[in-house]
């Protein structure tokens, strides 16, 4: 299988409310950045474009159609869209390159979630007969998952607090982060619970923003003459939708995807995990088999800023950034979808 090179990545700053900025206005500056990184003009200069978004973030059908307005798609381009996080748009784009119908691809994801009440909006992705009509928000589901882990002794509240503390600390070095600062484990533990057993700081913020990436064949990357990293493996798996049928203290689908993506084939220097709740990072680190030698979420992860529909792609982008900066040789990026980590995608990125 052909290796795929990542040659460019950019994301907007994660903000709680992008204000007077619609989807196309959110996407264009991010695209311009990645065009600039490889020295191209617009989407005409890549062979394929794929995006990820969700209509319900902003409450209007066909959100992705606005995205096309950002591309300069005249003359027409080869373009597709997943109603998922853009990490899956990356997945689709990789298949396109591997089948030989494209040498390069632009991937972007965007979401303006601030107009809605995101945890309630996302309740409508649950079973439409049994759960969605109860309006069970995603934070509450995650809280029940956290309690299982705590009460079964898999993790402690101190472990969760340590995740939060590290995320905020790491985020100080991340200009795109929404939440950054010094908060000690004890500070975290001193905070009152919000949705017990979760504290507010255990939960990711809701952010507006977009992220974009350009990938291509290794030949094309050399032609463009830009630094690049290689995608050595990518796999995703989904689990049963019945929450009660899942072992919520583990992530079987992440474990399987990691195995298929070849996470264990070498040391992992850096990992960016899409863990919207602190305890989920602990589940994921275990499922991915990450140990002490791995720097987890050096960007601060999504606890520091969560670009809905782009955070999964952003994880890959963050790993890419570490590798081209020479800070890591090999990294793992993870993306998730659905309640309590139901669907997970794992990407292995290596130094070229």
């Amino acid at each position, binding site marked *: 299988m052909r290796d795929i090179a990542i040659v460019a990545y950019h994301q907007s700053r994660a903000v709680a409310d992008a204000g007077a900025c619609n989807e196309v206005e959110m996407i264009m500056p991010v695209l311009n950045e990645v065009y600039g990184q490889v020295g191209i003009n617009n989407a005409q200069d890549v062979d394929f474009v794929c995006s990820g978004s969700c209509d319900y973030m902003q409450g209007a059908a066909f959100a992705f159609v606005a995205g096309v307005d950002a591309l300069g798609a005249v003359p027409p381009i080869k373009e597709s869209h997943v109603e998922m996080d853009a990490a899956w748009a990356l997945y689709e784009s990789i298949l396109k390159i591997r089948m030989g119908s494209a040498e390069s691809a632009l991937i972007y994801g965007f979401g303006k979630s601030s*107009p*809605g009440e995101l945890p309630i909006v996302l309740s409508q992705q649950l079973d439409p007969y049994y759960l969605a009509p109860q309006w069970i928000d995603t934070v509450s589901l995650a809280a029940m998952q956290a309690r299982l882990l705590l009460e079964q002794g898999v993790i402690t509240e101190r472990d969760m607090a340590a995740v939060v503390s590290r995320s905020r600390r790491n985020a100080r070095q991340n200009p795109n982060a929404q939440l950054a600062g010094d908060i000690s484990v004890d500070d975290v533990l001193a905070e009152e619970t919000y949705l017990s057993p979760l504290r507010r700081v255990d939960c990711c913020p809701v952010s507006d923003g977009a992220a974009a990436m350009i990938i291509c064949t290794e030949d094309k990357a050399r032609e463009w003459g830009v630094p690049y990293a290689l995608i050595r493996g990518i796999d995703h798996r989904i689990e049963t939708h019945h929450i009660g049928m899942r072992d919520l203290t583990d992530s079987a689908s992440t474990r399987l995807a990691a195995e298929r993506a070849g996470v264990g084939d070498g040391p992992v220097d850096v990992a960016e995990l899409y863990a919207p709740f602190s305890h989920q990072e602990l589940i994921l680190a275990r499922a991915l088999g990450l140990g002490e030698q791995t720097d987890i979420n050096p960007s601060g992860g999504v606890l520091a800023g969560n670009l809905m529909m782009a955070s999964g792609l952003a994880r890959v982008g963050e790993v890419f950034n570490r590798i081209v900066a020479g800070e890591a040789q090999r990294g793992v990026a993870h993306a998730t979808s659905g309640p309590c980590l139901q669907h997970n995608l794992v990407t292995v990125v290596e130094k070229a």
Partner: protein
Amino acid sequence: MADQQDTITGIDVPVYLKYNFTAGAGPARFLSQVKNGKLTGQRCPRCQQVYIPPRGSCAACGVATEEELVLPDKATVQSFTIVSIPIPNNPIKPPYIIANLVLDGANISFIHLMSECVNEDVRIGQRVQAVWKPEEEWDYSMDNIRYFKPLDEPDVPVAQIGKLPVSGWEGMSDA
């Protein structure tokens, strides 16, 4: 009690979500002007085409449209349909005419109502002008224009639709 024994085969599920929409920067500048009764188009810096209502970018070029120009409220019918069914949540009574209209000086059409006309006489290339609501009812919306009505001007040849200058069709005929 007969009902009680029936098996449930269907349910009504209300799914109502509340959003607080914020207009984008380009559209917001346009809407602020419409509130004052001014139709402000935005020009693409690359292809020079004028968009109204602007949506944030020139969709053809993928670049922001920042230069603004005030357009008259005269337009040309690019095409239209006579609709005989109601629009959900809209009080307009059918039949009504929804026309694709291009304002003078603009290069793209938008849809709006046409009225004060004989439906059978409406045609591609026809000249129309906005009929505004009373000023005190103006808001951040193209609905400030109640509808467009026919103008007593010669039709615009199809090849010229969407290419008229701000000075309009008569201005062009004079020239």
